[in-house]
C-alpha cells in the first residue's frame, strides 16, 4: 500500500505575495514622488516639493503633499474654478503634477514587482 504526502504551501505563498506586494507599493509611490518632483510648482523655498509623505499599510498606500496649498496647485485653480494659475515661473512645472506621476507609475506597475516574487 502506498501513501501520498500532500504539503499545502498556499498560506506561505499568500503571506509572501502580501508582504512583497506591500514593498512593491512603496517602491511605486517613491517613484511617483521622484517623477512628480521636476514638474511640481516651486517657489524659492521648495516647500511643496519637500513636504511629502508616503504611507504604506498592507496592500494600501498613500502619498501626500502636505503643503496647505497643494490641492490648489494640483488643480491649477480653486475648487470652485476661480483663481486659475496663468503663469508658472519655473519652466516645466504646472498643474496635475501628482496625477501625471501616478498615471506614469500605473503604466509601468510590473517594474515595481521585479525581483520581489520568486
Amino acid at each position, binding site marked *: 500500500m502506498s501513501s501520498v504526502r500532500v504539503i499545502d504551501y498556499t*498560506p506561505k505563498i499568500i503571506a509572501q505575495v502580501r*508582504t512583497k506586494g506591500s514593498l512593491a507599493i512603496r517602491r511605486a509611490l517613491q517613484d511617483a514622488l521622484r517623477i512628480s518632483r521636476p514638474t511640481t510648482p516651486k517657489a524659492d523655498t521648495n516647500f511643496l516639493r519637500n513636504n511629502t*509623505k508616503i*504611507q504604506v*499599510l*498592507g496592500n494600501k498606500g498613500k502619498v*501626500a503633499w502636505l503643503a496647505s496649498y497643494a490641492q490648489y496647485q494640483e488643480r491649477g485653480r480653486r475648487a470652485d474654478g476661480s483663481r486659475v494659475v496663468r503663469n508658472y515661473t519655473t519652466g516645466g512645472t504646472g498643474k496635475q503634477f501628482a496625477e501625471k506621476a501616478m498615471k506614469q507609475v500605473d503604466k509601468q506597475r510590473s517594474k515595481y514587482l521585479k525581483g520581489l516574487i520568486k
Partner: protein
Amino acid sequence: MNIAQSFANYLETITGSTLGQTLFIGQAPSSNKAPDDLWWIITSGGTPILDAVTGEMVKQYSIEVYHRSRNYKSVYDLQQDLEITLNCSRCVELQDFEIVSIRATAFPIDSDLDDEDRKIALIQVDLTAYEDCIDIS
C-alpha cells in the same frame, strides 16, 4: 453576534483595550476626539466555502487589525505578540464562531499621515470559521 463584534470582544481580552474607547469597529474616530493609543478593526468577507446539509456553513473572513501609538517600540512589540497569538488557532476563541483556520500577516509599521510622531501597525487576518444557523426572527 457578527464576526466584527465577536473579534472585537476577543481583542479586548488580549490587548486590554475597551470597545468604544480605545478599540473601534470600522474606522478610527477623528484624532482630536480619541487618544493616540488606539486599536481599530475592519472586517470583510463572509464568503461561504462549505455548507452542511443541515444548513451550517464554513465561511471565510478577512480582518484588518490596526494599532497606533506614539511609541514605536510598543507598537512593534504589540504587533508581534498579536501576530504570534493569532497564528495559533487553538489560542483564539471567538463567541458564536468555531475557528477552522486562522492566519495572520504582520506588515511593516509606518508613520501616521496625520501626525508624524505617531506610528501605525497593521495585521491582516484570514479567518475560516464554522457558523451555526441563526434564526433572527
